[in-house]
Protein backbone atom coordinates (compact mmCIF):
# COMPACT_ATOMS: atom_id res chain seq x y z
CA UNK A 1 0.00 0.00 0.00
CA UNK A 2 2.67 2.48 1.07
CA UNK A 3 4.90 1.20 -1.70
CA UNK A 4 2.30 1.89 -4.39
CA UNK A 5 1.77 5.39 -3.05
CA UNK A 6 5.52 6.01 -3.00
CA UNK A 7 5.86 4.71 -6.54
CA UNK A 8 3.10 6.97 -7.74
CA UNK A 9 4.75 10.02 -6.19
CA UNK A 10 8.12 8.94 -7.55
CA UNK A 11 6.67 8.76 -11.06
CA UNK A 12 5.10 12.21 -10.75
CA UNK A 13 8.33 13.63 -9.35
CA UNK A 14 10.44 12.08 -12.07
CA UNK A 15 8.08 13.44 -14.73
CA UNK A 16 8.34 16.92 -13.25
CA UNK A 17 12.12 16.72 -12.99
CA UNK A 18 12.32 15.25 -16.47
CA UNK A 19 10.33 18.15 -17.83
CA UNK A 20 12.34 20.83 -16.08
CA UNK A 21 15.83 19.50 -16.71
CA UNK A 22 17.32 20.94 -19.84
CA UNK A 23 18.82 17.97 -21.60
CA UNK A 24 21.16 18.59 -24.48
CA UNK A 25 21.69 16.65 -27.65
CA UNK A 26 25.43 16.02 -27.32
CA UNK A 27 27.26 13.72 -24.91
CA UNK A 28 30.05 16.21 -24.18
CA UNK A 29 27.78 19.19 -23.50
CA UNK A 30 26.13 18.90 -20.08
CA UNK A 31 23.92 21.95 -19.72
CA UNK A 32 22.94 25.05 -21.61
CA UNK A 33 21.09 27.99 -20.10
CA UNK A 34 20.39 31.69 -20.36
CA UNK A 35 22.07 33.88 -17.77
CA UNK A 36 21.14 37.52 -17.51
CA UNK A 37 20.12 39.50 -20.54
CA UNK A 38 22.85 38.68 -23.03
CA UNK A 39 24.77 35.70 -21.66
CA UNK A 40 24.52 32.05 -22.64
CA UNK A 41 26.23 29.61 -20.28
CA UNK A 42 27.40 26.21 -21.52
CA UNK A 43 28.71 23.52 -19.18
CA UNK A 44 30.92 20.80 -20.62
CA UNK A 45 31.59 17.33 -19.25
CA UNK A 46 35.33 17.88 -19.25
CA UNK A 47 37.74 20.78 -19.49
CA UNK A 48 37.97 22.45 -22.89
CA UNK A 49 40.98 24.20 -24.42
CA UNK A 50 41.19 27.94 -24.06
CA UNK A 51 42.63 28.58 -27.51
CA UNK A 52 39.79 26.59 -29.08
CA UNK A 53 37.18 28.74 -27.36
CA UNK A 54 38.93 31.94 -28.39
CA UNK A 55 38.89 30.88 -32.03
CA UNK A 56 36.21 33.08 -33.68
CA UNK A 57 35.01 30.19 -35.82
CA UNK A 58 34.37 27.91 -32.86
CA UNK A 59 30.94 29.12 -31.78
CA UNK A 60 27.99 30.20 -33.86
CA UNK A 61 24.66 31.24 -32.34
CA UNK A 62 21.33 31.84 -34.05
CA UNK A 63 17.64 31.83 -33.27
CA UNK A 64 15.83 28.69 -34.32
CA UNK A 65 13.34 30.46 -36.62
CA UNK A 66 15.92 32.23 -38.76
CA UNK A 67 19.08 30.20 -39.13
CA UNK A 68 20.59 32.69 -41.60
CA UNK A 69 21.00 35.48 -39.05
CA UNK A 70 24.00 34.78 -36.82
CA UNK A 71 24.09 36.66 -33.53
CA UNK A 72 27.29 38.61 -32.92
CA UNK A 73 29.41 37.43 -30.01
CA UNK A 74 31.04 40.13 -27.94
CA UNK A 75 33.52 38.03 -25.97
CA UNK A 76 33.80 34.62 -24.33
CA UNK A 77 34.77 33.91 -20.73
CA UNK A 78 35.95 30.56 -19.44
CA UNK A 79 35.84 29.43 -15.81
CA UNK A 80 38.92 28.31 -13.85
CA UNK A 81 38.33 24.60 -14.27
CA UNK A 82 37.74 25.17 -17.98
CA UNK A 83 34.36 23.41 -17.78
CA UNK A 84 31.93 26.34 -17.95
CA UNK A 85 31.94 28.81 -20.80
CA UNK A 86 30.06 32.11 -20.66
CA UNK A 87 29.28 33.58 -24.07
CA UNK A 88 28.60 37.34 -23.97
CA UNK A 89 26.49 38.56 -26.87
CA UNK A 90 26.47 42.07 -28.23
CA UNK A 91 22.66 42.52 -28.15
CA UNK A 92 20.12 41.41 -25.59
CA UNK A 93 18.64 37.96 -26.21
CA UNK A 94 14.99 37.32 -26.87
CA UNK A 95 14.63 34.58 -24.32
CA UNK A 96 11.22 33.40 -25.47
CA UNK A 97 12.80 32.03 -28.65
CA UNK A 98 14.85 28.85 -28.79
CA UNK A 99 18.47 29.56 -29.66
CA UNK A 100 20.76 27.12 -31.46
CA UNK A 101 24.44 27.07 -30.57
CA UNK A 102 26.79 25.36 -33.02
CA UNK A 103 30.08 24.30 -31.45
CA UNK A 104 32.55 23.44 -34.19
CA UNK A 105 35.06 20.71 -33.47
CA UNK A 106 35.22 20.88 -29.67
CA UNK A 107 38.84 20.47 -28.43
CA UNK A 108 39.27 18.99 -24.97
CA UNK A 109 42.82 18.52 -23.67
CA UNK A 110 44.16 18.33 -27.19
CA UNK A 111 41.59 15.76 -28.34
CA UNK A 112 38.69 16.53 -30.65
CA UNK A 113 35.21 15.72 -29.31
CA UNK A 114 33.36 16.31 -32.56
CA UNK A 115 30.95 19.04 -33.59
CA UNK A 116 27.85 19.71 -31.51
CA UNK A 117 24.69 21.66 -32.24
CA UNK A 118 22.77 22.28 -29.02
CA UNK A 119 19.64 24.27 -28.27
CA UNK A 120 19.23 26.78 -25.48
CA UNK A 121 15.74 27.28 -24.12
CA UNK A 122 13.91 28.24 -21.01
CA UNK A 123 12.56 25.62 -18.63
CA UNK A 124 9.34 24.10 -19.93
CA UNK A 125 7.09 24.96 -16.96
CA UNK A 126 8.53 28.43 -16.81
CA UNK A 127 7.85 28.78 -20.50
CA UNK A 128 4.20 27.72 -20.07
CA UNK A 129 3.71 30.15 -17.19
CA UNK A 130 5.35 32.92 -19.18
CA UNK A 131 2.95 32.34 -22.05
CA UNK A 132 -0.06 32.33 -19.70
CA UNK A 133 0.93 35.48 -17.80
CA UNK A 134 2.11 37.09 -21.01
CA UNK A 135 -1.18 36.57 -22.80
CA UNK A 136 -3.15 37.63 -19.72
CA UNK A 137 -1.34 40.73 -18.45
CA UNK A 138 1.92 41.66 -20.18
CA UNK A 139 0.53 41.37 -23.70
CA UNK A 140 -3.14 41.77 -22.77
CA UNK A 141 -5.00 41.37 -26.03
CA UNK A 142 -7.35 44.27 -25.46
CA UNK A 143 -5.19 46.92 -23.83
CA UNK A 144 -1.79 46.15 -25.32
CA UNK A 145 -2.51 44.51 -28.67
CA UNK A 146 -5.82 46.28 -29.43
CA UNK A 147 -7.76 43.23 -30.58
CA UNK A 148 -11.41 42.44 -29.94
CA UNK A 149 -12.41 46.06 -29.41
CA UNK A 150 -15.83 45.70 -31.06
CA UNK A 151 -17.11 43.28 -28.42
CA UNK A 152 -15.15 45.07 -25.71
CA UNK A 153 -16.98 48.35 -26.35
CA UNK A 154 -20.27 46.65 -27.17
CA UNK A 155 -20.95 44.54 -24.08
CA UNK A 156 -19.35 46.51 -21.26
CA UNK A 157 -22.32 48.74 -20.52
CA UNK A 158 -23.47 46.44 -17.72
CA UNK A 159 -21.42 44.30 -15.39
CA UNK A 160 -23.61 41.20 -15.70
CA UNK A 161 -23.38 41.13 -19.51
CA UNK A 162 -19.63 41.65 -19.30
CA UNK A 163 -19.22 38.66 -16.99
CA UNK A 164 -21.46 36.46 -19.18
CA UNK A 165 -19.54 37.42 -22.29
CA UNK A 166 -16.19 36.87 -20.58
CA UNK A 167 -17.08 33.34 -19.47
CA UNK A 168 -18.54 32.22 -22.80
CA UNK A 169 -15.65 33.80 -24.69
CA UNK A 170 -13.05 31.98 -22.58
CA UNK A 171 -14.77 28.63 -23.15
CA UNK A 172 -15.13 29.13 -26.91
CA UNK A 173 -11.59 30.37 -27.43
CA UNK A 174 -10.06 27.42 -25.56
CA UNK A 175 -12.16 24.96 -27.59
CA UNK A 176 -11.50 26.53 -30.96
CA UNK A 177 -7.77 27.03 -30.42
CA UNK A 178 -7.37 23.41 -29.34
CA UNK A 179 -9.18 22.14 -32.41
CA UNK A 180 -7.26 24.49 -34.68
CA UNK A 181 -4.01 23.25 -33.17
CA UNK A 182 -4.88 19.69 -34.16
CA UNK A 183 -5.95 20.76 -37.64
CA UNK A 184 -2.86 22.89 -38.14
CA UNK A 185 -0.35 20.32 -36.92
CA UNK A 186 -1.87 17.20 -38.47
CA UNK A 187 -3.55 18.42 -41.66
CA UNK A 188 -2.34 21.85 -42.78
CA UNK A 189 1.34 21.31 -42.02
CA UNK A 190 1.84 17.77 -43.39
CA UNK A 191 0.06 18.64 -46.65
CA UNK A 192 1.81 22.02 -46.86
CA UNK A 193 -1.37 24.04 -47.26
CA UNK A 194 -0.60 26.58 -44.56
CA UNK A 195 -1.75 29.41 -46.83
CA UNK A 196 -5.33 28.22 -46.30
CA UNK A 197 -5.09 28.88 -42.57
CA UNK A 198 -7.31 31.98 -42.60
CA UNK A 199 -10.19 30.17 -44.31
CA UNK A 200 -9.79 27.03 -42.21
CA UNK A 201 -9.56 28.88 -38.90
CA UNK A 202 -12.52 31.17 -39.50
CA UNK A 203 -14.64 28.22 -40.62
CA UNK A 204 -13.55 26.34 -37.54
CA UNK A 205 -14.44 29.22 -35.23
CA UNK A 206 -17.91 29.46 -36.77
CA UNK A 207 -18.35 25.70 -36.39
CA UNK A 208 -17.19 25.74 -32.76
CA UNK A 209 -19.55 28.54 -31.88
CA UNK A 210 -22.42 26.70 -33.58
CA UNK A 211 -21.51 23.46 -31.80
CA UNK A 212 -21.30 25.09 -28.37
CA UNK A 213 -24.62 26.78 -29.11
CA UNK A 214 -26.33 23.50 -30.01
CA UNK A 215 -24.83 21.48 -27.16
CA UNK A 216 -25.58 24.12 -24.56
CA UNK A 217 -29.17 24.44 -25.78
CA UNK A 218 -29.75 20.70 -25.17
CA UNK A 219 -27.63 20.08 -22.10
CA UNK A 220 -28.27 23.14 -19.99
CA UNK A 221 -31.16 25.34 -21.18
CA UNK A 222 -30.87 27.67 -18.16
CA UNK A 223 -27.22 28.40 -18.91
CA UNK A 224 -28.07 28.80 -22.58
CA UNK A 225 -30.67 31.43 -21.77
CA UNK A 226 -27.99 33.39 -19.97
CA UNK A 227 -25.07 33.01 -22.35
CA UNK A 228 -26.70 32.15 -25.69
CA UNK A 229 -26.96 35.75 -26.79
CA UNK A 230 -23.22 36.30 -26.62
CA UNK A 231 -22.27 33.22 -28.62
CA UNK A 232 -23.30 34.72 -31.96
CA UNK A 233 -21.38 37.91 -31.24
CA UNK A 234 -18.16 36.00 -30.65
CA UNK A 235 -17.66 35.17 -34.35
CA UNK A 236 -17.26 38.83 -35.20
CA UNK A 237 -14.41 39.39 -32.74
CA UNK A 238 -10.87 39.88 -34.05
CA UNK A 239 -9.44 38.13 -31.03
CA UNK A 240 -11.03 34.76 -31.76
CA UNK A 241 -9.17 34.58 -35.09
CA UNK A 242 -5.98 36.25 -33.90
CA UNK A 243 -5.17 33.62 -31.27
CA UNK A 244 -5.07 30.63 -33.69
CA UNK A 245 -3.08 32.72 -36.17
CA UNK A 246 -0.52 33.65 -33.51
CA UNK A 247 -0.44 30.03 -32.38
CA UNK A 248 0.32 28.93 -35.95
CA UNK A 249 2.91 31.66 -36.52
CA UNK A 250 4.80 30.78 -33.32
CA UNK A 251 4.50 27.04 -33.96
CA UNK A 252 3.46 26.31 -30.36
CA UNK A 253 3.07 22.78 -29.07
CA UNK A 254 -0.20 21.56 -27.54
CA UNK A 255 0.21 22.79 -23.97
CA UNK A 256 1.68 26.09 -25.07
CA UNK A 257 -1.31 26.77 -27.32
CA UNK A 258 -3.65 25.74 -24.49
CA UNK A 259 -1.93 28.24 -22.20
CA UNK A 260 -2.04 30.93 -24.89
CA UNK A 261 -5.77 30.53 -25.42
CA UNK A 262 -6.51 30.34 -21.68
CA UNK A 263 -4.43 33.45 -21.11
CA UNK A 264 -6.13 35.30 -23.93
CA UNK A 265 -9.59 34.35 -22.66
CA UNK A 266 -8.83 35.27 -19.06
CA UNK A 267 -7.17 38.51 -20.10
CA UNK A 268 -10.23 39.41 -22.13
CA UNK A 269 -12.46 38.54 -19.18
CA UNK A 270 -10.36 40.79 -16.94
CA UNK A 271 -10.52 43.66 -19.42
CA UNK A 272 -14.31 43.33 -19.80
CA UNK A 273 -14.81 43.22 -16.04
CA UNK A 274 -12.63 46.26 -15.31
CA UNK A 275 -14.20 48.28 -18.10
CA UNK A 276 -17.79 47.42 -17.12
CA UNK A 277 -17.14 48.49 -13.52
CA UNK A 278 -15.87 51.85 -14.74
CA UNK A 279 -18.69 52.36 -17.21
CA UNK A 280 -21.36 51.69 -14.59
CA UNK A 281 -19.86 54.53 -12.58
CA UNK A 282 -19.57 56.74 -15.67
CA UNK A 283 -23.34 56.62 -16.12
CA UNK A 284 -23.70 58.66 -12.95
CA UNK A 285 -20.89 61.10 -13.68
CA UNK A 286 -21.49 64.54 -15.22
CA UNK A 287 -19.82 64.16 -18.63
CA UNK A 288 -19.83 66.92 -21.30
CA UNK A 289 -22.48 66.26 -23.91
CA UNK A 290 -20.15 65.63 -26.84
CA UNK A 291 -18.14 63.09 -24.85
CA UNK A 292 -21.08 60.90 -23.85
CA UNK A 293 -21.17 57.32 -25.05
CA UNK A 294 -18.30 56.13 -27.22
CA UNK A 295 -15.73 58.93 -26.83
CA UNK A 296 -15.48 58.68 -23.04
CA UNK A 297 -15.31 54.89 -23.31
CA UNK A 298 -12.33 55.24 -25.61
CA UNK A 299 -10.57 57.65 -23.30
CA UNK A 300 -11.14 55.38 -20.30
CA UNK A 301 -9.70 52.43 -22.20
CA UNK A 302 -6.75 54.63 -23.16
CA UNK A 303 -6.09 55.21 -19.46
CA UNK A 304 -6.35 51.45 -18.87
CA UNK A 305 -3.90 50.87 -21.72
CA UNK A 306 -1.45 53.31 -20.17
CA UNK A 307 -1.65 51.52 -16.84
CA UNK A 308 -1.26 48.12 -18.51
CA UNK A 309 1.99 49.40 -20.01
CA UNK A 310 3.32 49.10 -16.48
CA UNK A 311 3.32 45.31 -16.91
CA UNK A 312 5.61 45.52 -19.91
CA UNK A 313 8.84 45.26 -17.93
CA UNK A 314 7.61 42.20 -16.06
CA UNK A 315 9.11 38.81 -16.73
CA UNK A 316 8.88 36.06 -14.18
CA UNK A 317 11.15 33.31 -15.44
Amino acid at each position, binding site marked *: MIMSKCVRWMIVLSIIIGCTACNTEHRFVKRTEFKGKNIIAITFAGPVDENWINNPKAIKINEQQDPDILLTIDHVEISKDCKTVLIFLKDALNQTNVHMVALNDIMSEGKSQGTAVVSVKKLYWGNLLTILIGAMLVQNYVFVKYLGLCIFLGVTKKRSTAIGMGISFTIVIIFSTTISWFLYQFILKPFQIEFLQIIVFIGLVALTVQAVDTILRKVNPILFKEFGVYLVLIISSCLILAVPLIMAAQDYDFFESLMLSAGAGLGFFLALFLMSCVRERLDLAPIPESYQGMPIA*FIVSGLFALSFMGFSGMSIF
Partner: protein
Amino acid sequence: MLEDNKSYSNIFLNGIFNDNPIFRLALSMCPAVGISTNVMNGLLMGIAVLFVQFCSSLTISLIKNYIHPRIRIPTYTLTIATWVTVTDLVLAAFFPVAYKSLGIFVRLIVVFCFITMRLDVFARKNPVFPSLVDAVGMGLGFMFGMMAIGGVRELMGMGTLLGYDILGFRPLLFFVLPASGFFVVGFMMAIFNYTETVFNRRKRARRAVS
Protein backbone atom coordinates in the same frame (compact mmCIF):
# COMPACT_ATOMS: atom_id res chain seq x y z
CA MET B 1 -33.62 48.43 -59.42
CA LEU B 2 -32.52 51.53 -57.57
CA GLU B 3 -34.97 53.54 -55.56
CA ASP B 4 -35.58 57.08 -56.75
CA ASN B 5 -33.95 58.93 -53.88
CA LYS B 6 -30.74 56.94 -54.15
CA SER B 7 -28.50 58.23 -56.90
CA TYR B 8 -25.01 56.82 -57.39
CA SER B 9 -23.37 59.87 -55.81
CA ASN B 10 -25.59 59.44 -52.75
CA ILE B 11 -24.58 55.82 -52.38
CA PHE B 12 -20.94 56.79 -52.81
CA LEU B 13 -20.98 59.65 -50.31
CA ASN B 14 -23.00 57.61 -47.81
CA GLY B 15 -20.01 55.39 -47.13
CA ILE B 16 -17.68 58.33 -46.63
CA PHE B 17 -19.85 60.58 -44.44
CA ASN B 18 -23.16 59.24 -43.10
CA ASP B 19 -22.07 55.65 -42.56
CA ASN B 20 -18.36 56.20 -42.06
CA PRO B 21 -17.18 52.84 -40.65
CA ILE B 22 -14.82 54.37 -38.11
CA PHE B 23 -16.38 57.60 -36.82
CA ARG B 24 -20.07 56.94 -37.31
CA LEU B 25 -20.63 53.19 -37.04
CA ALA B 26 -17.67 52.66 -34.66
CA LEU B 27 -17.18 49.22 -36.16
CA SER B 28 -13.80 47.53 -36.58
CA MET B 29 -11.94 49.83 -34.25
CA CYS B 30 -9.06 47.39 -33.78
CA PRO B 31 -6.97 48.60 -36.78
CA ALA B 32 -7.99 52.21 -36.11
CA VAL B 33 -6.38 52.00 -32.68
CA GLY B 34 -3.73 49.37 -33.27
CA ILE B 35 -1.73 50.35 -36.34
CA SER B 36 -2.66 53.97 -37.04
CA THR B 37 0.70 55.31 -35.87
CA ASN B 38 1.36 57.00 -39.23
CA VAL B 39 -0.41 57.97 -42.45
CA MET B 40 1.33 55.33 -44.54
CA ASN B 41 -0.01 52.45 -42.43
CA GLY B 42 -3.51 53.92 -42.64
CA LEU B 43 -3.24 54.26 -46.42
CA LEU B 44 -2.00 50.69 -46.90
CA MET B 45 -4.64 49.24 -44.60
CA GLY B 46 -7.28 51.30 -46.39
CA ILE B 47 -6.18 50.01 -49.80
CA ALA B 48 -6.22 46.43 -48.54
CA VAL B 49 -9.72 46.84 -47.09
CA LEU B 50 -10.93 48.62 -50.23
CA PHE B 51 -9.70 45.74 -52.38
CA VAL B 52 -11.33 43.10 -50.18
CA GLN B 53 -14.61 45.01 -49.95
CA PHE B 54 -14.69 45.60 -53.73
CA CYS B 55 -13.98 41.99 -54.65
CA SER B 56 -16.34 40.42 -52.12
CA SER B 57 -19.16 42.86 -53.02
CA LEU B 58 -18.64 41.91 -56.67
CA THR B 59 -18.70 38.20 -55.86
CA ILE B 60 -21.76 38.35 -53.64
CA SER B 61 -23.80 40.56 -55.96
CA LEU B 62 -22.99 38.23 -58.85
CA ILE B 63 -24.05 35.04 -57.06
CA LYS B 64 -26.76 36.54 -54.84
CA ASN B 65 -29.54 34.54 -56.49
CA TYR B 66 -27.90 31.23 -55.67
CA ILE B 67 -27.33 31.82 -51.96
CA HIS B 68 -29.85 30.27 -49.63
CA PRO B 69 -30.86 32.91 -47.05
CA ARG B 70 -30.23 30.57 -44.11
CA ILE B 71 -26.55 30.08 -44.91
CA ARG B 72 -25.80 33.57 -46.11
CA ILE B 73 -23.52 34.62 -43.21
CA PRO B 74 -21.12 31.64 -43.59
CA THR B 75 -21.07 32.30 -47.34
CA TYR B 76 -20.06 35.91 -46.76
CA THR B 77 -17.37 34.92 -44.29
CA LEU B 78 -15.85 32.36 -46.64
CA THR B 79 -15.94 34.79 -49.58
CA ILE B 80 -14.19 37.46 -47.53
CA ALA B 81 -11.69 34.91 -46.22
CA THR B 82 -10.80 33.92 -49.79
CA TRP B 83 -10.15 37.49 -50.85
CA VAL B 84 -8.23 38.22 -47.65
CA THR B 85 -5.98 35.25 -48.38
CA VAL B 86 -5.35 36.70 -51.85
CA THR B 87 -4.51 40.12 -50.36
CA ASP B 88 -2.33 38.55 -47.69
CA LEU B 89 -0.27 36.54 -50.18
CA VAL B 90 0.06 39.44 -52.65
CA LEU B 91 1.20 41.86 -49.92
CA ALA B 92 3.64 39.33 -48.49
CA ALA B 93 5.13 38.68 -51.94
CA PHE B 94 5.39 42.21 -53.36
CA PHE B 95 5.44 44.60 -50.38
CA PRO B 96 7.27 42.73 -47.58
CA VAL B 97 8.17 45.90 -45.62
CA ALA B 98 4.60 47.18 -45.57
CA TYR B 99 3.34 43.68 -44.75
CA LYS B 100 5.59 43.55 -41.70
CA SER B 101 4.43 46.93 -40.41
CA LEU B 102 0.75 46.00 -40.78
CA GLY B 103 1.39 42.74 -38.97
CA ILE B 104 -1.49 40.43 -38.16
CA PHE B 105 -4.15 43.01 -39.03
CA VAL B 106 -4.11 42.16 -42.76
CA ARG B 107 -5.36 38.67 -41.92
CA LEU B 108 -7.88 40.04 -39.47
CA ILE B 109 -9.74 41.87 -42.27
CA VAL B 110 -11.82 38.68 -42.32
CA VAL B 111 -13.55 39.63 -39.09
CA PHE B 112 -14.09 43.34 -39.80
CA CYS B 113 -17.79 43.66 -39.09
CA PHE B 114 -18.56 46.40 -41.57
CA ILE B 115 -17.53 44.36 -44.64
CA THR B 116 -19.98 41.60 -43.71
CA MET B 117 -22.57 44.24 -42.87
CA ARG B 118 -22.29 45.91 -46.30
CA LEU B 119 -22.61 42.55 -48.02
CA ASP B 120 -25.73 41.75 -46.04
CA VAL B 121 -27.31 45.20 -46.23
CA PHE B 122 -26.41 46.25 -49.75
CA ALA B 123 -24.72 43.75 -52.09
CA ARG B 124 -27.30 41.05 -51.40
CA LYS B 125 -30.20 43.21 -52.62
CA ASN B 126 -28.72 45.34 -55.37
CA PRO B 127 -27.34 44.80 -58.89
CA VAL B 128 -23.62 44.62 -59.55
CA PHE B 129 -22.80 48.23 -60.42
CA PRO B 130 -24.47 49.97 -57.43
CA SER B 131 -22.88 47.45 -55.06
CA LEU B 132 -19.48 48.26 -56.49
CA VAL B 133 -20.10 51.99 -56.01
CA ASP B 134 -21.17 51.29 -52.44
CA ALA B 135 -18.11 49.12 -51.82
CA VAL B 136 -15.74 51.82 -53.10
CA GLY B 137 -17.51 54.42 -50.95
CA MET B 138 -17.23 52.30 -47.80
CA GLY B 139 -13.61 51.42 -48.53
CA LEU B 140 -12.69 55.07 -49.11
CA GLY B 141 -14.54 56.07 -45.94
CA PHE B 142 -12.51 53.56 -43.97
CA MET B 143 -9.31 54.73 -45.67
CA PHE B 144 -9.99 58.40 -44.89
CA GLY B 145 -10.78 57.57 -41.27
CA MET B 146 -7.56 55.60 -40.88
CA MET B 147 -5.52 58.31 -42.61
CA ALA B 148 -7.06 61.05 -40.44
CA ILE B 149 -6.18 59.22 -37.21
CA GLY B 150 -2.76 58.31 -38.58
CA GLY B 151 -2.17 61.92 -39.68
CA VAL B 152 -2.97 63.33 -36.24
CA ARG B 153 -0.80 60.78 -34.50
CA GLU B 154 2.13 61.18 -36.89
CA LEU B 155 1.98 64.98 -36.85
CA MET B 156 1.67 65.23 -33.08
CA GLY B 157 4.12 62.48 -32.29
CA MET B 158 6.89 62.79 -34.85
CA GLY B 159 6.21 66.17 -36.48
CA THR B 160 6.12 64.52 -39.91
CA LEU B 161 3.51 63.57 -42.50
CA LEU B 162 4.11 60.61 -44.82
CA GLY B 163 7.72 60.70 -43.65
CA TYR B 164 8.32 64.32 -44.70
CA ASP B 165 9.37 66.70 -41.96
CA ILE B 166 6.71 69.36 -41.51
CA LEU B 167 6.96 70.88 -38.04
CA GLY B 168 10.69 70.41 -37.50
CA PHE B 169 10.20 69.32 -33.88
CA ARG B 170 8.27 66.70 -31.96
CA PRO B 171 5.31 68.29 -30.16
CA LEU B 172 4.19 65.40 -27.96
CA LEU B 173 6.06 62.13 -28.05
CA PHE B 174 3.14 60.57 -26.20
CA PHE B 175 1.26 60.19 -29.48
CA VAL B 176 3.77 57.66 -30.77
CA LEU B 177 2.97 55.37 -27.84
CA PRO B 178 0.54 52.59 -28.76
CA ALA B 179 -1.85 53.56 -25.96
CA SER B 180 -2.46 57.01 -27.46
CA GLY B 181 -4.58 55.46 -30.24
CA PHE B 182 -7.50 55.23 -27.81
CA PHE B 183 -7.17 58.89 -26.83
CA VAL B 184 -6.90 60.14 -30.43
CA VAL B 185 -9.97 58.17 -31.52
CA GLY B 186 -11.89 59.34 -28.44
CA PHE B 187 -11.03 63.01 -28.95
CA MET B 188 -11.77 62.89 -32.69
CA MET B 189 -15.15 61.30 -32.04
CA ALA B 190 -15.90 63.99 -29.48
CA ILE B 191 -14.96 66.70 -31.99
CA PHE B 192 -17.23 65.10 -34.59
CA ASN B 193 -20.09 65.03 -32.08
CA TYR B 194 -19.45 68.64 -31.07
CA THR B 195 -19.47 69.99 -34.63
CA GLU B 196 -22.63 68.04 -35.30
CA THR B 197 -24.46 69.47 -32.28
CA VAL B 198 -23.32 73.01 -33.12
CA PHE B 199 -24.37 72.53 -36.73
CA ASN B 200 -27.80 71.22 -35.72
CA ARG B 201 -28.32 74.06 -33.24
CA ARG B 202 -27.55 76.68 -35.91
CA LYS B 203 -29.86 74.96 -38.35
CA ARG B 204 -32.66 75.00 -35.80
CA ALA B 205 -32.01 78.67 -34.96
CA ARG B 206 -32.07 79.62 -38.65
CA ARG B 207 -35.31 77.76 -39.12
CA ALA B 208 -36.79 79.52 -36.10
CA VAL B 209 -35.80 82.94 -37.47
CA SER B 210 -37.20 82.31 -40.91
